[in-house]
């Protein structure tokens, strides 16, 4: 009996494996009425929360495009996999999308910079365009020489840091306590901040923390010894809530500036920090404050439409920045595809993206060029504040 089961198991594993290889030798690559777009986001594993938001953003874009009749009559056939935060799984899935599923274009790089960096050589090697939704600038730089087919719809940390520095200068802040987490998100920002701040005459004191940490008071207290005027955390994890609570607990009522990076722009996080989050200042795309900015801003209607459609689609949930970035990435791809007339050749798409001029998206007005595959500038960054119940722009 048990022998039968084990034999069965062995055989089925073998069969399944060879079937997945055999059955799909690039068979359905060129079906005329659809365009296959592949996406990886980590909807399980450590960054699952974020990955889920990104998936929703991309999914919304696909639904909208298909509902509008697709791209020149071709519907998007969307292929989605979950690498669960693991780069080698992502590499395998990227190969699967390109070699087996017949994916013609990839949007979304797994939700972590490491994964996007791992995917880029594969997509580039096959001449496939790749529009990433991850932060690290190495994904697309240097654009013209090394990454001609790869774009991203996120802010370079450089842009964010420049905006921060301008903000600090305007508020006469010269001493900053910086707490990045030890993930790639925090580390990339740390590199940029420690590179750019000294040039601007700002002294940065850094203490990193583990994203899984449950108490950050030693770091806060230690940094407090340097008398900083502002505390800035850089994380996408719930540890940011602990940061806010601990900061309030250690510093009491002192009126230092409490800041977070764009990874933490999330209503839920802010609410969960309770009173400790009130007054927190964040650098962010304009999306969270779309209803508080000048209606003459060309981005305003785009953001409003997106926020409304998203809330409608996902039961009243407010989109966060990550959902916006994924939506933008998909829409940039669609715009380029419309320009090429549905041709998915990597170089043609890349040319089309670079020729889009200004693509007004929900997280910024993208201006891609041959040398800039990020497309966002300091003008797209807003400084916002949590007033205890919602985000508002800071003048």
């Amino acid at each position: 009996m048990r022998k039968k089961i084990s034999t069965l198991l062995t055989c089925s594993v073998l069969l399944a494996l060879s079937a997945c290889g055999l059955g799909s030798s690039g068979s359905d690559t060129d079906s005329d009425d659809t365009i296959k777009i592949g996406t990886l986001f980590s909807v399980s594993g450590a960054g699952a929360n974020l990955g889920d938001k990104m998936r929703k953003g991309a999914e919304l874009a696909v639904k909208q495009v298909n509902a509008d009749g697709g791209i020149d009559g071709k519907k998007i056939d969307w292929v989605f996999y979950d690498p669960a935060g693991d780069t080698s799984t992502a590499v395998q899935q990227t190969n699967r999308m390109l070699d087996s599923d017949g994916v013609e274009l990839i949007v979304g790089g797994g939700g972590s910079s490491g994964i996007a960096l791992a995917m880029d050589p594969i997509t580039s090697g096959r001449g496939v365009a790749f529009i990433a939704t991850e932060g690290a600038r190495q994904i697309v730089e240097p654009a013209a020489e090394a990454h001609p087919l790869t774009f991203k719809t996120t802010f370079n940390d450089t842009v964010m840091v420049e905006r921060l520095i301008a903000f600090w200068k305007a508020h006469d802040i010269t001493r900053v306590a910086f707490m990045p987490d030890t993930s790639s998100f925090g580390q990339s920002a740390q590199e940029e901040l420690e590179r750019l701040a000294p040039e601007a005459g700002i002294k940065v004191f850094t203490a990193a923390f583990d994203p899984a940490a449950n108490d950050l008071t030693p770091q806060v207290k230690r940094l407090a010894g340097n008398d900083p005027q502002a505390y800035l955390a850089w994380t996408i994890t719930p540890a940011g809530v602990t940061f806010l609570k601990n900061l309030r607990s250690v510093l009491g009522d002192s009126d230092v500036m409490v800041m977070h990076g764009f990874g933490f722009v999330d209503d839920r996080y802010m609410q969960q920090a309770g009173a400790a989050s009130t007054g927190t200042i964040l650098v962010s795309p304009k999306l969270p404050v779309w209803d508080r900015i000048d209606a003459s801003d060309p981005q305003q209607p785009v953001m409003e439409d997106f926020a409304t459609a998203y809330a409608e689609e996902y039961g009243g949930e407010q989109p966060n920045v990550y959902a916006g970035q994924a939506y933008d990435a998909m829409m940039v791809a669609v715009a380029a595809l419309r320009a090429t007339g549905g041709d998915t050749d990597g170089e043609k798409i890349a040319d089309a993206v670079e020729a889009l001029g200004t693509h007004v998206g929900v997280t910024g007005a993208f201006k891609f060029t041959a040398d800039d595959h990020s497309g966002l500038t300091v003008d797209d960054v807003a400084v916002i504040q949590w007033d205890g119940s919602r985000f508002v722009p800071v003048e």
Partner: protein
Amino acid sequence: MDTGLLIQVILSGLSVGAIYALVAVGFGVIFNATGAINFVQGEYVMVGGLSAAMLYEAWDVPVLVAIVAAVALTVLLGVLTEFGLLGFGRLRTPASITIATIAIAVIIKGAAMLISDRDTYALPSVLGAGSLQVWGASTSRQTVLNLLLAVVAVVALALFFQRTKLGTTLRAAAGDSETLQTFGVSYRTTARWAFVIAAALGAVAGAGLAPLTVMSFDSGTLLGLKGFAAAMLGGLGNPRGALAGGLMLGIAEAVMSGYGAAAYADVVAFVVLLAILTLRPTGMFGTAQAVRT
């Protein structure tokens, strides 16, 4: 030297250490009963904290009621864990049980991810949000409660192991089914009780942890491993050792965060684990035989 920072480091260490201690005690209880390492322990913490917070946040259940319900749910999960491991009578060695606990931990985590829809949930402290100021340092009121919980749990367990019949059996068993038979108790019965106790301890740790941070489906795994390091530090299976080990590990991490390279703070637990196994494998207060003869 900045005494404020020193006090802060110690307070932080005690705050996190109390949680580690509760987790470590749970590891010890299961180890004594089955000889296995229960990798589900960290997930009990997650389920306890996350379900309490979800009940509170999503269904407006009063905090205390939510905590009690969460503990009950986690205990149920503990019973189910025992069934999943031993209910089929096929896993007989500590090593195979240990491996099966990993599978169960993965299942619980995967289910929690879907049920919580990957969201984070917060739980307020039953003592309110305020913080305590101690000689220029500060900590949340919850920390005091957590320390108290850890001490009470350890004392209660120590008494339980020494004074009650079930406790003596559990302690004497140490995973040896033959010994158990001479006691006239079945292996399954003691194992089930051990899982009930361990799950309850985990849930309490989770409910105590939630107010310090926020809970998500991912909150348990690393905490479990660190709690295990604490258990080894104090001596696996010894409740008082677990308390000491937990607090010391917490303080060691805080010292690294406050004085050393903060980015390496989470390496501390595992370096401690390696060091203690190399230098004194029975832990500082342990009696178990860890080295081959």
